[in-house]
């Protein structure tokens, strides 16, 4: 993509007080989405040939991983040390910590294993806030409607209702754990209204909501007597019973010493988060290093049904510059506070608070039709007009967005003076494992919560619902997993791995690729030979 207005020219033209014109009428969102949204790129989607979703559409790079060979086979299990736990939680982000705490509150002995450090997650990076219907002019009903509408009515109404109803209680639980939120002078929780919301519903802790949530939950988990934590211990496979029909544990490896370990348990809660680090369709990402979609691969191999595998959220405003922050987010809160998007001609081109997929498609349209701002041969973006916001509300950026200010300051950029160059970035996996209101997947013994689960956000997530979902469903699954009263596994096997391998062979598919990915190639130096 080499068309676009050169940076120097666009900068010379830019003024924070210029007339940016009236907003052009948005003719037809469907055509806009179908033409420019990355989900609809030609050749981006294929049909799955094996497994529980045979015949369903799936993003092609993800399909390759879902239909691939495992890391280990039976020979690897002989002599591997075994640990027993009542509940095994895989993933140390917000969902995993909430699940572990809920299970431990119910008296279970919990083992939480995580790939990197406890708290290295997408959760810690969330800035904008968490949704809950608490204002007088708002209701759980409206929260449900907004979520379903935002998701293009592809979400599961029962799951959405469960989450929205939990909203206020989730806030109370978080406050009990010791999480702080922004308050109004009279002590109410401060709320904002963001894209797709019919009322102010976004509760936040300045622009560090995820950090505040994560550090409190991390501390609560570390301090809890009944929760043991293993870091640098990614799950590389699940274990099934002798019929390959029930999940009874997992196999972990260690990034420190490569030692395999078996965990045997009555219930496994997958909370492995998203997949931005797969860089689908070649996009940069806002996600943390560990977001490689491992949970989807593990769940699919053991037979769980997944959904919306062709639908991803590209956040409209990823930073294009500086390069070491490429793909990193400028929170939607900045647009909610009034910042406008402006193209290289100095014109506004979309209502900034439209749903994210629409705004994203509009930016990609500006870029591909030559109205973007071009840094070099590859990088084209549009302005996020922060100086104009600063003029309208002096001091707001410093006060409400300290995170953004700190990050840009390191690179010598001052968003109060210069507009930010932004481009859509791979942000969120809309779909995931099919679950019920307890977070149970279609495979007995296996739960999935948080970003790895699907069904709530349909084909598009509105801001603030992910942080609500991880606590609401994390706790639901933690409680449900503890209720299971069976005596635990007699035998742990890799029967499900054999089953998928047979299916792949029958379908004539090559077994060349191994999954889960665990780390992107650029960070896997010295860890393994894939």
């Amino acid at each position, binding site marked *: 993509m080499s068309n676009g207005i050169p940076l120097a020219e666009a900068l010379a033209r830019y003024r924070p007080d210029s007339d940016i014109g009236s907003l052009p009428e948005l003719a037809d969102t469907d055509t806009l989405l179908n033409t420019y949204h990355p989900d609809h790129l030609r050749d981006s989607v294929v049909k799955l040939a094996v497994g529980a979703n045979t015949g369903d559409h799936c993003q092609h790079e993800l399909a390759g991983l879902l239909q691939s060979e495992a890391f280990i086979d039976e020979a690897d299990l002989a002599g591997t040390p075994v640990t027993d736990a009542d509940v095994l939680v895989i993933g140390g982000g917000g969902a995993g910590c909430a699940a572990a705490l809920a299970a431990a509150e119910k008296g279970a002995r919990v083992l939480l294993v995580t790939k990197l450090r406890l708290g290295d997650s997408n959760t810690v990076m969330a800035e904008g806030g968490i949704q809950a*219907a608490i204002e007088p002019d708002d209701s759980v009903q409206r929260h449900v409607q907004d979520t379903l509408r935002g998701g293009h009515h592809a979400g599961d109404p029962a799951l959405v209702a469960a989450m929205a109803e939990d909203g206020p209680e989730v806030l109370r639980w978080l*406050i009990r754990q010791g999480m702080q*939120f922004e308050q109004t002078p009279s002590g109410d929780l401060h709320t904002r209204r963001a894209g797709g919301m019919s009322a102010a519903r976004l509760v936040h802790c300045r622009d560090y909501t995820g950090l505040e949530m994560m550090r409190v939950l991390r501390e609560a988990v*570390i301090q809890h007597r009944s929760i043991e934590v293993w870091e*640098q211990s990614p799950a590389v496979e699940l274990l099934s019973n002798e019929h390959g029909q029930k999940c009874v544990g997992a196999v972990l490896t260690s990034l420190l010493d490569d030692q395999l370990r078996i965990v045997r348990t009555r219930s496994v809660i997958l909370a492995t988060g998203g997949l931005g680090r797969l860089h689908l369709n070649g996009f940069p990402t806002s996600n943390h*290093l560990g977001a490689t979609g491992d949970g989807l691969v593990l769940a699919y191999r053991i037979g769980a049904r997944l959904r919306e595998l062709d639908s991803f959220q590209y956040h409209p405003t990823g930073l294009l*510059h*500086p390069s070491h922050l490429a793909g990193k987010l400028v929170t939607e809160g900045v647009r909610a506070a009034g910042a406008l998007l402006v193209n290289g001609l100095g014109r506004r081109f979309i209502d900034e608070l439209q749903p994210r997929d629409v705004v994203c498609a509009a930016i990609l349209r500006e870029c591909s039709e030559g109205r973007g701002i071009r840094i070099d041969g590859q990088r084209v973006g549009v302005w996020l007009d922060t100086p104009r916001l600063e003029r309208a509300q002096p001091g707001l950026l410093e006060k409400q967005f300290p995170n953004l200010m700190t990050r840009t300051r390191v690179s010598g950029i001052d968003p109060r003076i210069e507009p930010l160059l932004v481009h859509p970035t791979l942000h969120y996996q809309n779909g995931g494992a099919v679950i019920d209101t307890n977070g149970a997947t279609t495979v007995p013994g296996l739960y999935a919560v948080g970003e790895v689960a699907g069904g709530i956000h349909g084909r598009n997530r509105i801001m603030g619902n992910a942080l609500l979902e991880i606590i609401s469903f994390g706790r639901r699954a933690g409680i449900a997993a503890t209720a299971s009263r069976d005596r635990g596994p007699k035998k742990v096997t890799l029967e499900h791995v054999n089953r998928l391998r047979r299916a792949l062979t029958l379908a004539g598919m090559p077994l060349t690729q191994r999954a889960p990915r665990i780390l992107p190639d650029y960070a896997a130096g010295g*860890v393994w030979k894939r």
Partner: protein
Amino acid sequence: MSAILSKENENAQQPDVALTINGLAVNAHTGMTLVEAAWHAGVPRVTSVGCMEGVCGSCRVMLRRGKDVTVGLACQTFAEEGIEVVFMPPASAPRHHYEIGDFKDAWDIHARFQDIFPEASRCRHCHGCDSACPKGITVENGVALAAAGRYRDAGEAFFECVMCELCDVACPELIAPAHVGLFCRRVTAHFHLRPPNLIYRLEELRQERQSVALIESDEEK
């Protein structure tokens, strides 16, 4: 000149810098963070990395420039000529234990704090924590506020804390300032955050559930 333009011009030239990471001599480009430099050069097992934007506190490094030794976050530090970088091992398990659910009475909280963090009142004001903190937090002062029972103010001092625990490593009295800070923030919310709008909605929902339950039990009869 605009900051974007000058930065982009600098990137375009990309002069090489030589440094060492975990004992290996490597080359990097100006503008690369130490994380990028380590990966670019294939330094094995650099997995204490999470967010790459300075909020998760994982990428703790020891930095040596000549005789000068400091600590920092690798994703927030740029490659520079001659610098020696060592990625630090994961922090050891904390030595202070409490479960917030065990606290029943806010009037006792200072006694509880002293039980849990007895070292906090022994701060020797060496500034070790302040110079270690990559976020410029006034850690020493935060600890002093906590020791004086000013939990809200102490917690506020730790607002931008990213849990790197570099201050814990630096503290000769083993005070664990990072955990002191979190304790202060947590008890402030736990005992004092009582927002009327949330409380009102919780009660409304409770009553709704109750009346639904009543109707349902009527129908069953």
